[in-house]
């Protein structure tokens, strides 16, 4: 009986600790974002400007290097949507209206989502691993003693690069998804690419594009912050870095999907 009570107390204690850790992580993330924007805006005044070269280097790693995989996957998703759309609409004899579904799905949902998930897998994990490794190797302590603010030096370039490159990759993904879907529609239904493009432009508005790109900006912040918070929390050497990396990918993808749903809910109620 006493053992059962102890076990129940331990469980409650465990839940409490997890809740506190979660709140602490969210708080750390918020502080990190605020601090990052402070350095971005006032770094020059503090005589510690954010280095453009560091931002460009991060943009290359996060954005340019990801272009092939983004093109391949968004193209595949576009074709998949076209296949499913035509298959479904054929039931009603309305397959020629497939363009509507493809356009909205690619621009508002799939391009931002796939891009976010890919960047979380590639760059969010790399950021967590990099910061975690730097922490256990005392490189972050070395930065502090040298008078170099780690947030300004490590986080701001990554966050800023994410904010620029995730929407850029999303835009690229939108074009590729629509283009690949257009090729399939052309092959399957015989609708010319010009007619397909004309229909797509007619259907879509700037709001739709803003919806997709706005979401991708939120995803960018989530990926960077989750990567950094997990990296900064590393304990226990190489194994700790591995765990933090895995955790950051899982958390970032989960956060992206949940945010996507919330964003869609809010945006469609307006």
């Amino acid at each position, binding site marked *: 009986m006493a053992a059962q009570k102890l076990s129940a107390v331990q469980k409650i204690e465990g839940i409490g600790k997890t809740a506190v850790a979660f709140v602490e992580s969210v708080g750390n993330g918020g502080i990190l974002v605020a601090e990052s924007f402070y350095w971005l805006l006032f770094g020059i005044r*503090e005589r510690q400007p954010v280095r453009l070269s560091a931002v460009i280097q991060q943009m290359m790693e996060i954005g340019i290097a990801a272009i092939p995989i983004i093109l391949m996957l968004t193209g595949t998703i576009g074709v998949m949507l076209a296949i499913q759309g035509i298959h479904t609409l054929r039931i009603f004899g309305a397959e020629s209206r497939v363009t509507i579904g493809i356009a909205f799905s690619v621009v508002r949902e799939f391009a931002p989502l796939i891009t976010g998930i890919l960047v979380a897998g590639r760059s969010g994990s790399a950021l967590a691993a990099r910061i975690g490794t730097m922490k256990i190797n005392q490189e972050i302590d070395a930065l502090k003693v*040298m008078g170099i603010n780690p947030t300004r030096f490590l986080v701001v370039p990554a966050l800023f690069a994410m904010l620029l490159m995730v929407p850029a990759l999303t835009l690229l993904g939108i074009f590729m998804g629509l283009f690949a879907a257009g090729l399939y529609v052309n092959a399957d239904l015989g609708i010319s690419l010009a007619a397909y493009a004309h229909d797509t432009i007619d259907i879509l508005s700037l709001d739709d594009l803003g919806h997709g790109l706005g979401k991708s900006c939120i995803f960018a912040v989530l990926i960077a912050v989750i990567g950094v918070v997990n990296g900064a929390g590393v304990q226990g050497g190489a194994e700790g870095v591995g765990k933090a990396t895995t955790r950051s990918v899982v958390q970032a993808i989960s956060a992206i999907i949940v945010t996507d749903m919330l964003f869609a809910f809010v945006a469609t109620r307006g």
Partner: protein
Amino acid sequence: MRNPQSIMEERKSRHRPPTGPTAVIEVEDLVTHYGDRMILKGVSMQVLENEIMVIMGGSGSGKSTLLRHLMALEVKTSGTMRILGKDIDRISRQEFLDVRKKLGVAFQSGALFSSMTVGENIMLPLYEHTDLDALTMEIMARMKLEVVELSGFENLMPSELSGGMIKRAAFARAIVMDPKVLFCDEPSAGLDPVVASALDDLILDMRDAMGMSIVVVTHELDSAFKIADRITILDRGDILMIGTVEEVLASKSDRVQALLNRIPEEDTMDPDEYLNRLVGEDNPGTAHL
């Protein structure tokens, strides 16, 4: 441990007393905790100008924590700390940054940035804190590499260096801004005796050439006796003694003699503390950068 007489003879050729009574670091009644566990229990000490202060103690004595406090990397529970005459709790962020620019550190692992070459590592503080042009920075980096006898290694990556070379490169980065105080965490750890002795000579050379104060944390007795002007011995978060090498060697304290003669102390850990350690209650992990 080597024969004390041979240590004293070797010291005679290199040892020189601090130039003056000016303290570059003053710590008073420093108390710090990790969770509920008290790590430092009211430590008071000074590091004088142009002095090599060695901090020694057994595992868990708090020497690494003390070093982190001296480098202003930890938040203390209570006490005061003045670095280069500034009370670090009462200065602005800009003043704190200015103080930090006058500190250098060579960590046990070297803590070189693995994504940068040795030369880029050394130039980083110059790049961040000065308006020097690239060529001048390169020349300065080469000069510092020459001081640590690593000339020609500036284009290598840290992963291409041996353990001793990494420590030398870390020294070069630590001294590139000509700091007033240099901190060294276990400089000889993991090195063979010859390389370790060469690093000790390097520490003495840097102090003599650059007139800086150096704080070294080590548990290598030979190394400590070779380089120290004074030694602070910590024991379970308290200062056991502060004195010159001669005073430490002549100490009648059982605890000091136990440390010098490497006699393991009896396990007197509090049962509650032991239990807490087993269940990980004292884990000081943090997710802050």
